[in-house]
């Protein structure tokens, strides 16, 4: 409930099983810290709730861990909301997703290290109550192309607990938190009994959409995060490309040309150092590369060749020994 941060929720009823050692629900009714949010939307509360959850190390602490998180900006957050707006029995279904990426430093205290390293416990809420993740939502999570976000899902499980996603090769200290909340917009008055398969399909597609929106939102707000493996390789070329381009500009014996290029880059020509030019070009290149990474995959695959590269490769089968000093002429002697 502390994650949902529902401002109007006042009371939660718990039943004591008669444990003579004391109430087992000592903490169950807890004042939610007053959070002033500009928006009245549930997603903002959900986001705030998950941020608190992460900043307090999964609520193991009562207060924010300032040693790990000097400020909230250390968290990288993405949100996504998918609604079923079609008319009919599914209308009003909403699925909200919040994803937070946090990175702890190498000097983190052992008590701050997450219990499940390399794993994400997916918190799931339905109609404002915590519950076990539904099968359609779990299927949706496992069907997402995580590689297009630079992540590789190794395995998942959901036995008697929240769903657990296990990742491959997460950097040290890197952690992903996910919360999903499915509800009916006009709750509780608009609960409709739907055929099971219809509900499942709707929930699966809503979950997929909301999670992808959250991932895209996170990428858009945080440069260099959730990049595909190919983008990371391309980024590695940026320093060399920048150095060469800076060389082409600064080693030119045409000062007007130098001035024009520096002006295009937004740099002052006077007393400019090559390192500054390189860094500027590198940042521009990285910006282009990251922008390409955020483009839909179908656009990246449809490479705009006007001449298919495969043709060139097929018809060069005899041109292995060609041109230049290194042509192998030993076959002919």
């Amino acid at each position, binding site marked *: 409930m502390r994650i949902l941060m529902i401002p109007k929720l006042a009371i939660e009823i718990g039943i004591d099983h008669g444990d003579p050692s004391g109430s087992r629900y000592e903490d169950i009714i807890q004042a939610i810290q007053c959070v002033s949010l500009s928006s009245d939307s549930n997603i903002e509360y959900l986001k705030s709730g998950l941020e608190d959850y992460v900043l307090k190390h999964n609520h193991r602490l009562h207060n924010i861990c300032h040693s790990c998180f000097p400020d909230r900006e250390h968290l990288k957050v993405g949100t996504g909301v998918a609604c079923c707006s079609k008319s009919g029995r599914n209308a009003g279904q909403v699925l909200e997703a919040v994803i937070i990426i946090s990175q702890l430093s190498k000097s983190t205290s052992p008590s701050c290290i997450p219990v499940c390293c390399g794993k994400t416990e997916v918190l799931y809420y339905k109609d404002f109550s915590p519950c076990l993740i539904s099968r359609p939502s779990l299927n949706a999570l496992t069907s997402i192309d995580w590689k297009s976000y630079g992540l590789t899902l190794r395995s998942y499980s959901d036995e008697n607990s929240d769903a657990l996603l296990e990742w491959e090769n997460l950097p040290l200290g890197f952690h992903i938190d996910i919360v999903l909340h499915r509800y009916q917009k006009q709750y509780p008055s608009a609960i409709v009994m739907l055929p099971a398969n219809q509900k499942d399909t709707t929930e699966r597609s809503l979950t997929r959409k909301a999670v992808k929106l959250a991932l895209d939102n996170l990428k858009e707000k945080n440069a260099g995060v959730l990049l595909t493996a190919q983008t990371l390789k391309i980024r590695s070329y940026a320093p060399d490309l920048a150095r060469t381009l800076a060389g082409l500009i600064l080693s030119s014996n045409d000062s007007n040309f130098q001035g024009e290029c520096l002006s*295009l880059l*937004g740099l002052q020509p006077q007393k400019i150092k090559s390192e500054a030019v390189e860094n500027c070009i590198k940042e521009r*290149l990285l910006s282009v590369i990251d922008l390409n990474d955020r483009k839909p995959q179908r656009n990246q695959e449809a*490479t705009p*060749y*006007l001449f298919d590269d495969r043709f060139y490769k097929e018809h060069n089968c005899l*041109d292995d020994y060609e041109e230049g*000093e290194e042509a192998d002429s030993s076959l002919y002697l």
Partner: protein
Amino acid sequence: MEGNNSISRPSDMLIRIRDFTRSIIKGMCKEQSSFVVHIDRFRNYCTDSSGHCCCSSYTAKGKELITLQRECHVHRLDVLLRVLLIVQQLLQENKHGSKRDIFYMHPSVFREQSVVDRAINDICILLQCRHNLNVVSVGKGLVMGWLRFSEAGRIFDCINSPNSAHPVPVNVEEVKDIMSVAKYILIVEKESVFQRLSNDQFCKKNQCIVITGRGYPDVPTRRFLRLIIEKLCLPTYCLVDCDPYGFDILTTYRFGSMQMAFDAKFLRISNIQWIGVFISDVDRFSLPQHCLLPLTNEDKSRTEALLRRCYLEREVPEWRLELELLLQRGVKFEIEALSAHSLSFLSEVYVPSKLKGELQM
């Protein structure tokens, strides 16, 4: 491809390099970045057997779009820009460097010489220039015979010693004062055949020029050959092994290579005549059957690929028939097999009989 035979000055090249660099910086700085480098694509053959292809024209057949979306593109761009920076320095300092020199400046990035060669071709296409980048090749061609010329003020008098090999000049632009009393030019595929003719004093007995590219001819060899043919207006004959490699070398002289397709118009030799060796020569010259070697599977697949080239049917159908015969018979035949009669059979009998106009293509 512009530029034809006129030489662009270094200052022109430097302007083009600056224009190209400026366009990259502009593309990178646009709000919705459109970082794309367009490189014209040239080809001198395809596999369209209908005869309706446009390979015989020298225009670009499409464009390659180099972006920052694929790693192979980015690597190609990295190589191209590194070579371009070196070229800019060479032009500004009025120095020359070889392709091999350039390779050793960044060997871990370039990895192979062919990568540098391709980058230089890309730059020639981008800047629409021909070999004016102050980048030179170490030529591997050889020439001998009744020819005299000068290169950068140095005189090469092959006539004084017509059976001595001279290296083909690399800076063809600086070749001048070409003089010859030769009656024809003979191109031979291999250095071994060139040496055979030299040892047999072929040019003393036959008033000709003999040239070899020592396998696949490099650009300086092809440019030099084209130059002397144009200047001297001599018939040109070609002698290659009867196998897929030999045939491919023949077509390189005749039609140009795919790698240099952008410059094919100025490198190809349209009036070349193929004098041998042919499968039929075995019977014609009563050579033993063991001179014919079986084609390997690789030879067969290469021959099949050659047969698909569009220009064969269109322009040299008789060459294509000979190649088909090679594939049908499943055998190949090397020039050296002529030594089955005698070492000098090539120079004293075979070539002279071919040049009498009886047995050519």
